[in-house]
């Protein structure tokens, strides 16, 4: 029997935990620090890479992803050293995808050519909004003009450029969003990430919201309308949703993110990075310390890991289901059974099919377009105790 992870592939995630400023909505692991010692960070990453390479040697590496935080604050040399080391540790796929998340500032854009020379071949840019008022309200440091300029430079340097927008912002109407998205689609190359604004606990927005501030957020119905508009418009532009919030022309999907959603294996290095590794037939979940200094200490002490949990068959199957159902392509129920040793409950499936929330196609189970909008409800129904 081949290991389950091969259905999803093998990738490397590198977390860069620093940003120029903390955005008020963001609960990613990001910290604002001056004076970052790039070479110390390079060494720490390389040490971690070597450690994991020893644990999972010989695998074909499909993707590398520099995420953050703001990886476009990394020196191109740092990025290059990590890429070279990874190439040295693992045989690489011919079409190895190397993505870097970039903030659209002018300084960052100045490094794009350097990233390209280091081996990066895909950029994912956090543009977030296409009007300056909203960019300010989101606490962003760039303007629409900055974003345009950075985007042009990125396009000049890379074949594959994607960007992120956040919608359902304060005082945004479905009509506003429709206009903004149309403009975004005319700019887009072949990939867009479109996230509905989520108010997270422990962020500045979260606090304001709880105290009754942050007025003008769209209600459930308006947010649902914006989601529908997003689906319709992107489909019409030949970039349908391949995942809940991700849209691409066929073949232009983020292969790295597909590894998560198809429940492949991935090494995660850097503060707060998560990994999934199959060892001796069992899936391991790895977690690293969140605080950059702690992570560095841990690496110096031998391993930049906080915990490693052996997932039992049910947890692994649940993760596959939760991640896989986000994809338009759905999941393979035979894979689910092989992971768990049990089938998905047939009465729940029949009920959801009946409601038009999911559809079955041989061993494939996928959410319909309406279903994907209420995926949490579907998962509550399908996940067994």
């Amino acid at each position, binding site marked *: 029997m081949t290991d389950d992870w091969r259905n999803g592939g093998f990738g490397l995630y590198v977390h860069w935990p620093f940003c120029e400023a903390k955005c008020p909505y963001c609960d990613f692991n990001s910290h604002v620090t001056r004076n970052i010692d790039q070479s110390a960070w390079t060494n720490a990453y390389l040490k971690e890479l070597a450690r994991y390479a020893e644990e999972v040697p010989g695998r074909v590496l499909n993707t590398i992803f520099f*995420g953050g935080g703001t990886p476009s604050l990394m020196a191109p040399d740092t990025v290059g050293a990590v890429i070279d080391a990874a190439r040295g540790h693992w045989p690489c796929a011919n079409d190895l995808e190397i993505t870097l998340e970039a903030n659209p500032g002018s300084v960052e854009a100045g490094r794009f050519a350097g990233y390209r020379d280091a081996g990066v071949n895909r950029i994912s840019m956090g543009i977030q909004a296409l009007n300056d008022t909203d960019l300010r309200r989101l606490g962003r440091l760039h303007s629409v003009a900055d974003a345009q300029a950075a985007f042009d430079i990125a396009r000049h340097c890379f074949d594959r450029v994607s960007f992120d927008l956040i919608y359902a912002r304060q005082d945004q109407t479905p009509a506003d969003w429709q206009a903004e998205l149309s403009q975004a689609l005319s700019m887009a190359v072949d990939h867009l990430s479109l996230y*509905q604004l989520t108010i997270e606990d422990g962020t500045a927005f979260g606090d304001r919201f709880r105290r009754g501030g942050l007025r003008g957020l769209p209600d459930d119905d308006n947010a649902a309308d914006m989601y529908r508009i997003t689906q319709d418009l992107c489909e019409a532009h030949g970039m349908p949703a391949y995942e809940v919030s*991700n849209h691409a022309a066929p073949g232009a999907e983020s292969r790295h993110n597909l590894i998560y959603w198809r429940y492949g294996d991935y090494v995660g290095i850097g503060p707060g990075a*998560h990994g999934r590794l199959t060892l001796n037939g069992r899936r391991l*979940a790895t977690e690293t310390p969140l605080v950059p200094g702690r992570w560095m200490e841990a690496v110096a002490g031998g391993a930049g890991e906080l915990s490693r949990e052996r997932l039992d068959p049910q947890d692994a199957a649940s993760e596959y289901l939760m*991640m896989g159902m986000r994809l338009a392509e759905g999941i393979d129920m035979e894979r689910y059974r092989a992971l768990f040793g049990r089938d998905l409950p047939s009465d729940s499936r029949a009920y959801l099919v009946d409601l038009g929330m999911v559809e079955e196609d041989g061993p494939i189970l996928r959410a319909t377009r309406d279903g994907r909008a*209420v995926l949490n409800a579907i*998962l509550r129904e399908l996940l067994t105790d």
Partner: protein
Amino acid sequence: MTDLAHIRNFSIVAHIDHGKSTLADRLIQATNTVSERDMKEQLLDAMDIERERGITIKANTVRIDYVADDGETYVLNLIDTPGHVDFAYEVSRSMRAVEGSLLVVDSTQGVEAQTLANVYQAIDADHEIVPVLNKIDLPASDCDRVAEQIEDVIGIEATDAIQVSAKTGIGIRETLEAIIHRLPPPQGTLDAPLKAMLVDSWYDAYLGVIVLVRIMDGTLKKGMRVKFMSNGTLHNVDRVGVFRPGMQMVDSLGPGEIGFLTASIKQVRDTRVGDTITTDKHGAETPLPGFNPSVPVVFCGLFPVDSAEFEDLRDAIEKLALNDASFSYEMETSAALGFGFRCGFLGLLHLEVIRDRIEREYDIDLITTAPSVIYHVYMRDGEMRELHNPADMPDLTHVDHIEEPRIKATILVPDEFLGDVLKLCQDRRGIQEDLTYAGQRAMVVYDLPLNEVVFDFYDRLKSVTKGYASFDYHLTGYRADNLVKMQVLVNDEPVDALSTMVHRDRAEMRGRAMCEKLKDLIPRHMFKIPIQAAIGGKVIARETLSALRKDVTAKCYGGDATRKRKLLDKQKAGKKKMRQFGKVDIPQEAFISALKMDS
């Protein structure tokens, strides 16, 4: 044994929160009954639920020894009583065991509804009453005004009321002296046959049933064989003791004394509150007058959210009932909820207390169905049926008429809120019986249907009067009215746990309010859900809960699948707190919340 002249027995009574338990603390402390180390606030409120809610639920007896200014040592038995109206029965039976009452009145608040209710009971029990004005440490305290109010409204002398701060200890010595000088000693005959009043009983895991007694005549001794006169059962007395407030064994108790006995009794149900205990041989001929048992007035179904926990629920209910004779239960089955129990309570607070204890002490999630009072359904053939559960309403073609329980409610309210109170009572089908003034405050007496009062009247009253009104009630009897059963249909299926009896004229209003409430309480589902109220198949109100349109996590946190898994686990746990009716999940709190009216 103590001679009668050196005994004083009294209850501490007051409106809720006026400081009874705190005063008891000070009396216990001033007489060194409890070591400093073991002292804590509201020492006698020992149950978790009492400490958490800061209220007294069970009356508590303590014996303290007081060396008075005259140099003599007196034995004082004090009973701290609850203030909340649901537990009024605890107060009335406690009063039967003692000769006097300390009437505590919060000097920042004045006379409230339970102050009045308690005074009337004390007068009924022939008590000497010593008024105590409490909380004089607070700036808002106004003893002159409150003393005047006591004289005006209650009609008892208050010029020599004692001014106390139970918090700081001012006036405690004076209170103790007043107890000696103003309350009468008990009466009784030492060489008469034993006559002991069974005041209360409860279950103790180690000792079995503990019986609280007041000795009227004769002596109660360890090793005696005694008879409970109501049913003639015989028991050997294993232990005799007193509460200080922990149990302390004594050899015997004589006339006028209050204490406890144990006699290997297994169940509280084998003892009857108000019973007379005498000796097996040469016992007393005539029993004491006794008193009426408490009767449950509010009924509801309790079902486990997880039907597999039915046996655990049975176990929990049986154990709680061991200790609480005022709570009744019988098995019930519901089409939608499966097996559960129909339980009777003294009021909604009592219901909530029992429900909380089952959930917490026994870790069982419960669904509480719509509470109901007991209706009298008169059939055409003349038979009268007691209806505890609207779901059991007989076919209307056989029903002649229906009667509902009525109460007499007394409300004290500052003048400025009187209009709102009158409107509230009117809306609840009340009939005004009296309206008098005492200074700035009005006292209104209403005849009201119990059904309109039991669930949320007190909450509404507090909210329309900003907390300034107080309220007391007692049952008066039954009266016929135009009552109908209202059903609720969720997704076109009747949910019997939501059926209620309503007045025909108010049915549309209540039906609409219930549907609206349920629309807010039931989470959106993947399909739209009609919610309807109906009388005998005719829909009188309708709402539609629209379908869930968006419920998906937008962002992908890199490879952090754990976070997502935990989030969904949490959601699933939330879903477990609901019960499915057809395909609709109804949250457990919906059944009571749906009945609470906003106006």
